C-alpha cells in the first residue's frame, strides 16, 4: 500500500502531507524533514527512486518527481510497483493541472482542501482507486457542487518562482 504522499517545495516547505498510517504530528514533521534532506541533495538527472529504509523502515520505497518548484513524493511498500507509482505521480500532477489550468505552486498553497479532495479520489486508504484524471476531475466537480463555493480559486499573480507552471517546466 501507499504509506504516505507528500508535496513539498524545493526549500523544504511542506505543501501537502498525507499519511495513510497514523503518525503523530512530531513524527510527521520529522519524516518530512528527513525526506527533504535526502531529496535536496539529488541532482536532476538521476533516478527517481530513493532507498528509504532508514527513514520509513525496511521494505519501504520512495519515488519522487521534481516539477518546477515542487517535489511530489510517494512512499509505499513492496505491494506497489515503482514505475507504476511514478506514473501515478504523473496522473496526480496532470489532474491538478487540469483542475487549476497550468497549475503552479501557488495554486497548491491556496487550495489546500481541494488538493486533498483530488488526492482522496485517486488514493483511498493507501490503495490506488482511480488512475484516470478525467474520472477524478468529474468526481471533484461533483463534490464541489455540494459545497458552498466560498472563494473561486483565483491564481493570485504573485511574483517569484512559485507561479511557474509545473507541467510546462517538466515537458
Amino acid at each position, binding site marked *: 500500500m501507499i504509506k504516505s504522499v507528500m508535496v513539498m517545495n524545493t526549500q523544504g516547505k511542506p505543501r501537502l502531507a498525507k499519511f495513510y498510517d497514523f503518525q503523530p504530528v512530531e513524527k510527521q514533521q520529522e519524516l518530512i524533514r528527513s525526506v527533504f534532506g535526502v531529496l535536496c541533495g539529488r541532482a536532476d*538527472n538521476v533516478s*527517481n*527512486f530513493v532507498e528509504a529504509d532508514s527513514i520509513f523502515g525496511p521494505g519501504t520505497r520512495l519515488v519522487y518527481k521534481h516539477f518546477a518548484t515542487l517535489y511530489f513524493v510517494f512512499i509505499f*511498500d513492496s*505491494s506497489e510497483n515503482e514505475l*507504476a507509482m511514478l506514473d501515478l505521480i504523473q496522473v496526480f500532477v496532470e489532474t491538478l493541472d487540469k483542475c487549476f489550468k497550468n497549475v503552479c505552486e501557488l495554486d497548491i498553497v491556496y487550495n489546500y482542501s481541494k488538493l486533498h479532495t483530488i488526492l482522496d479520489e485517486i488514493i*483511498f486508504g*493507501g490503495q490506488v482507486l482511480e488512475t484516470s484524471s478525467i474520472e477524478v476531475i468529474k468526481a471533484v466537480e461533483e*463534490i464541489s457542487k455540494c459545497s458552498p463555493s466560498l472563494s473561486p480559486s483565483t491564481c493570485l499573480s504573485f511574483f517569484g518562482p512559485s507561479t511557474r507552471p509545473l507541467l510546462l517546466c517538466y515537458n
Partner: protein
Amino acid sequence: MAGTSIMETLFQRDLDDLIKGIRQQQIKESLFISKAIEEIRREIKSTDLPTKSAALRKLSYLSSLHGADMSFAAFHAVEVMSSPQFFYKKIGYHAVTQSFNDDTPVILLITNQLRKDLNSSNQFEVSLALECLSRIGNVDLARDLTPEVFTLLSSNAVRVCFKRLVENLESSEPVILSAVVGVFCELCLKDPRSYLPLAPEFYKILVDSKNNWLLIKVLKIFAKLATLEPRLAKRVVEPICEFMRRTEAKSLLFECIRTVLSSLSEYESAVKLAVVKVREFLVDDDPNLKYLGLQALSIIAPKHLWAVLENKDFVIKSLSDGDYNIKLESLRLLMSMVSESNVAEISRVLINYALKSDPEFCNQILGSILSTCCRNLYEVIVDFDWYASLLGEMVRIPHCQKGEEIEHQIIDIAMRVKDVRPALVHVCRNLLIDPALLGNPFLHRILSAAAWVSGEYVEFSRNPFELMEALLQPRTNLLLPSIRAVYVQSVFKVLIFCAHSYLLHKENISSVNTDNLASEVPESVFARMSCENSDLATSEAPASSEQHDSFNPRNINQSFGDLSIENGGDATVSNSQASTSASLGRNSFTHESIVNLFNIVELALGPLSRSHDVEIQERARNVLGFTDLIEQEILNPVVQGEENLARAETEASRVVKLMCDAFSEELGPVSTSAQDRVPVPDGLLLKENLADLETICGDIQLPLSSSFSLSSTPLGEAVDISRTNLQSKDETEPSHESTSLLAEHRKRHGLYYLASEKSEGASNDYPPANDPMSQDKLNDDAEDLLKLTEQSLAPKKKPNQAKPRPVVLKLDGDEISVAAKKPELKDDLLSGVVQDVLLGNDGVPSSSRSNRSENLSGKSKGKEKLSTDLSLETKENVPGEKMPDHVNTSSRRSKHRSHGKERRQKGQGKDGEEKEDNGQKEKRKSNHHRGKHKAHQRADEPLNVVAQTPVIPDFLL
C-alpha cells in the same frame, strides 16, 4: 450572543487569510502560528458552525503542514463532522481522519455518525465515512460498523466478508476489480498460503485483463503464491513470458521480470528472457530503468550468477554513475561476483575507487569489502598476508570510518589464521607507529586491535623497542581509557618478551662459555608449548640457568658494558640460523637497551598508575610492579654480592620465564558448546551472592593458582594470571585480601569463567588448581572439537589453517561484532555435520543448497505430473522430496540456538549482579531467534499443506 457570532463570522480569518499571513511573514513564522492557534482555540468554541468549521479547517492545515498539535480539538471535530451540510461535514471528516488514533478518547463518539454516513444516500458522504474508517479504524469501530460496510459491498448483505470479496473478483467493473485485487494483494503479502485456493480467479484475471495496474497487482500475488505451489508456477510462467515479450508498459514489464527472477527462477527459458529484458533496462538512458535493472540483477544474483557476470561491464561502469542509488546497487552486485580468484583484483579496483569518492560512498565500499571478505570465515580469501595488508591500507584511506569492523577482523584473523601473524604484526606495527592515526577517533578501535595483536604476537615483531615506543608515545593520551588499557597490557607483553629475550641471551652466552647446556634443551618440553614462535625453542634455557649461573664470570660491574657489546656480537652469530623475524630484534637486546626500555616504561606508566580509570590503573600498576621486581634484581646488580646476585637473577629469570610462558600461550577461540560439557559440581549455586564466599574461603590458604578471568577479553585474563603469579612468587608483593578471595573463588569455580581452551591446557602446567577431572574432560572435548572442525575444513583450505565457523553466523551482522570482543570458535559438532552433508561441494552456503533441492523437487514433480496425470502418488511424494530441505533448516535452527547458549555463557562470566539481567536478555534474544525460525518453518510448510488442498488442481490443471 448573536451579535458576537456575526462579528466573529465577519472578521474571522479563513484558511486563505491564514496562508497569506504565513506567506507574508511580517512576523516570525512560529510566532504567527502560535498566535493563529490562540485565535483558533477561541473561535473553535463558537456555537456558530461556519466559524467553528473554519477554525477547524485552519487547525487541520496547521497541524498537517506546520506540525501544530490539534488533539485539543478532537471533540470539536466530532461536532463539525456531524453537521448535515456536506461542506462542513467534509472539514470535520478531514480533521478526524488526520488526527484521530486509538488513543483519542472521543473516538467511540463517532461510531454512530459513521454508521449514519455509511448508510447515506449521498455517495460522497459514504466515501468520506469509508475513507475515515479505513484510516482510523480500530477493533471497536470495525466490530460495530462491519455490517454497514458489507451492505455497501452488495445490495443483499452477506455476513462473510471474504466471500463477498471473492465474488467481486468476478466483477466486470474495472474499478471494483482493481480495488478488490488491491485488497488481496495486501492480504497475500501477510499470509499468502490462505489465498492459494483463489488462484484460479487470479489466473483468469491474469489472462483476461488488459489493465496494467490490475496485472501488476495480480503478478505480485502470483509472485507470492508461486513459491508455495510449484504447479502454479508452471502454469503462470508462460503467460508472464508472453507479457514480457508483448507489453509496452515498462512498469508491467518490470513487474514480470521481478516475478520471474524472484519466484520463477527455476524456469530457465523464462529467466533467460527476463535477463534479456533486464539488459534492455540497463542500457536505457533513463536512470530509473537503469536502477531497476540493477535491482533486478541483485534479485537474481544468488541463484543465477551468470546473469550478473554477463552484465559485468555494465555493472562496473555504473560504479561511477552520478546517481548514488545506482552506485550503491552496482557495488552490491560487484560484491556478489567476488570469488577466490578475483577478490584481490576487485578489492584493488574498489579501494582505488574509494580513495576518490565521497566519504559516504567510500565507507559503503569499505564496508562491503569487509563484509564480503569475512563471509563464511573468509571463504574467498586465499592469501591472508595480502588481506592483512589490505586491512592496513583501508585504515589509511582518509574517510575510513569502519573502525569496528576492521578491529574485529584484525583480531579475528590473528586468532584464526596462524600463518598470517607475522604479516599482520608488521601491518599493525606500521599503524601503531604512525602518530597521525591517533588523531582520528574513528580509527581508535583499529589501533586497539593493532596494539593487542602486537602485544600478543610480539615474537614476530622485528623491533620490539620500536614497538614499545609506539605504544607509549605521548599522543596515546588521545585514546579512550578502554583502548589505552589495551595499550598498557601490550606494553606489559612486549616488556616481558624483551626481558625474556635478554635473559635468554645471557644464558646463551653463558652456556657457550661453559658447557653448551642450553643446546641440550629437552625437546619434549618444547613440544608442550603450543606457541609456534621459533625463538621459544631456546626458551627452556633458563630452567638450567641455576647451575651455570654460579660459575658465570661475567657479573663484574665495570665490564658490563663491554660484555653487552660482546653479547650483541655473539648473538648475531648464534642467531644467524634462528628465524629471521626475531633475529633483528634480538640483536639489540643489550643491557643498555633493556635498561632504557625499563626507564621508558616507568616514565610513561608512572602517571597512569594514578589514572582515574581502574582498568588503566590496574594494568599500569601490574607493569610497574613487574619492573620493580625485575629491575632491581637483574639490571642493577651493583650492590649485591656475587652469590646474592646469582640467586636473585635466578629468581628474576624464573619470574620472567613464568610470565613469558603465561603470555606465550596462545589464546584460542572457544567452542560454543564447551560450557555445556562441564559437569556442574554438587552444591554449586551460581545465583548465590558472591559475598557469601568470604565465609567459605576465609580459612583456606591461598595456593598457587592460575586463575580465570572475569573479563571478557583475553587480555584481562593475562593480567590475572600474571598478577597471581607475582603474588605467589614474590612474598613481598602486597597481597590484598579481596584479591586473594576473588582468586580463590575463581580457582574453585574457575570453570565457570570462560577462558580459552588453550590457556586452560596451559594451566595444567602449573600446580593444578582446578578440579583435574573436569579440566581434562574439557580439554579433551575441546581438542576433539578442534580436530573435527579442522578435518571438516581441511580439504577446503589447506594452506591457511583457518578454523571453521558455522555458516549461519554470517547472517546476523550484530552477532559478528559481538564476536570481536571475545573471539570464539563459532563452531560446534553440528556444523561438522552440516559440512559433512555438504561434503564435496565447495562451501556452498546451506541456504542456496536448499534452494537447489527445492528446484529439484519442483522439477521432478513436473515430470511426475506428465507421467501420472496428477495421481495421488504425486501428492505423497511431495513431503518426501522436501526432506533434505527440512533437515537443513532444522540444523540451521539448532545452530542458532547453540549460539544463543554461547552468549548466555558469556553472561554468566560477568559479575553476579549483571548475571540475571544478561540472562534475561539472552532469553529474549533466543526467543527472538526461535521466533524467526518459526517463521521459517512456516514458509517451509506450505508445500505439504498445498498437497492436501485439492482446490487448485481442479481448476488449474
